[in-house]
């Protein structure tokens, strides 16, 4: 059992009894990848830390020192929690904090000595792919199979190459075999977003980065952890663990609190979500004709499922589900703000129309899942009837 330092400091003892440590799951919300409602403990930590840690933590005066102390306590907490999850010994000075995944990735890449090439696959997040261009090194494209597994065999011929990849794909849920990379003895920068908080973290990474929203933390905190066994070193001085212009200290306190309070629930939530998604897939495939699934059905994140419903517009599907009180995401091109089909689905050669990206928040119950399936079945038959099918 790890010491609950943040928990004690920021969550009022009187209210602890009524708290579960789990972020809430608003009814009908199935877009955990897009963010989760903060747990009561996390909200309290955020509010209290906002009152104490508003000054610049780099300042020498006592207001600044107070903010710096809270930031430092949070790094210790994150180190302990991540050590437990990843089964590794991390200390506070191996934890760094960035405001965005892109700034975290670009900064982390600069810390690998002797790198002359970067290898990544086409199904990484667009932010990660974009970050790989920044150092200006030659790039190697790793191929992916139809289920979204990155083929590591091309790494056999490469030396001094940094491998950049997601531990699991956040759109389709496929979990990569990190151990496959280790045989090549290449450094690996792993984005563990949607893994930390939901699934066991495999070993085999040199530097790990993760958006704190992955475990129910607030937006605007990306945590970087350096594996003590790697020869990575921070590329710029970061005495407070800050990357670039720094991070809101109160958000960091809240992120650390969210992970501490979630820890005792992770294993149970993982098993529940895995079964829920199995149930979702089974019901969708039997109750809807012409539905196709993307991603590995077994070696996957517990809470993510991706399917495409033929002969239905993704935009109509998502809007109609929203009207019925169900929030889901979609990788279809016709969804308002992208106008381009999901680059992940395209790389897999998967069907991009009528796409649904469903990700279960913590605390999701079987009833919630069943009402979502009922709504999808009704909506699909309505939309197909309107199209004369």
């Amino acid at each position, binding site marked *: 059992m790890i010491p609950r330092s943040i928990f004690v400091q920021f969550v009022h003892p009187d209210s602890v009894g009524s708290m579960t440590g789990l972020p809430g799951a608003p009814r009908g919300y199935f877009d955990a990848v897009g963010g989760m409602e903060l747990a009561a403990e996390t909200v309290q930590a955020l509010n209290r830390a906002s009152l104490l840690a508003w000054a610049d933590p780099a300042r020498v005066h006592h207001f600044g020192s107070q903010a710096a102390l809270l930031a430092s306590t949070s790094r210790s907490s994150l180190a302990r929690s991540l050590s437990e999850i990843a089964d590794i010994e991390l200390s506070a000075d191996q934890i760094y904090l960035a405001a965005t995944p892109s700034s975290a990735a670009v900064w982390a890449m600069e810390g690998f000595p002797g790198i002359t090439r970067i290898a990544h696959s086409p199904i990484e997040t667009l932010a990660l792919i974009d970050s790989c261009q920044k150092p200006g090194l030659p790039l190697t494209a790793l191929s992916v199979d139809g289920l979204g597994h990155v083929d590591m065999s091309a790494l056999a011929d490469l030396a001094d190459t940094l491998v950049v990849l997601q531990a699991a794909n956040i759109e389709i849920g496929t979990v990569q075999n990190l151990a496959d990379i280790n045989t090549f003895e290449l450094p690996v920068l792993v984005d563990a977003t949607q893994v930390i908080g939901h699934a066991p973290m495999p070993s085999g990474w040199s530097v790990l980065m993760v958006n704190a929203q992955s475990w129910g933390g607030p937006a605007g905190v990306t945590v970087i952890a350096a594996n003590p066994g790697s020869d990575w070193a921070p590329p710029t001085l970061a005495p407070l663990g800050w990357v670039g212009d720094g991070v809101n200290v109160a958000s960091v306190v809240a992120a650390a609190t969210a992970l501490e309070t979630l820890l005792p629930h992770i294993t149970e939530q993982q098993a529940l979500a895995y079964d829920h998604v199995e149930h979702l897939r089974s019901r969708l495939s039997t109750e809807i004709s012409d539905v196709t699934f993307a991603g590995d059905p077994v070696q996957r994140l517990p809470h993510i499922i991706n399917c495409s419903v*033929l002969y239905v517009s993704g935009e109509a599907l998502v809007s109609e589900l929203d009207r019925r009180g169900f929030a889901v995401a979609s990788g279809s091109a016709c969804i308002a703000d992208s106008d*381009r*089909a999901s680059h992940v689905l395209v790389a897999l*050669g998967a069907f991009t*129309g009528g796409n649904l990206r469903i990700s279960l928040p913590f605390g999701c119950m079987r009833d919630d899942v069943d009402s979502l399936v009922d709504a999808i079945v009704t909506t699909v038959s309505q939309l197909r009837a309107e199209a004369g099918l």
Partner: protein
Amino acid sequence: MTPDLWLDERGRRCPIPVIALARAQTQWANEGAAHSRLVGVLADDPAAQYDIPAWCRLKGAEFICEVTPPDAGLGTGYVVRFNSEK
């Protein structure tokens, strides 16, 4: 290679071009599917470039190629073959 049938779905957004293709396949099956049939779909929705080949893989049709529309107009022609097993 000239398609036996052109379906002009330009100006229509996804999933309409794919629905048209599925209807053509159903009609071909209803007619007995005695001979293979080459069908061209004209579409200008960018999703068609991914979804027509993906639909072919799912529905046992063969995606042949992309061509310039025969009227040299906008959009792309997607040529698909329904293969007869007879």
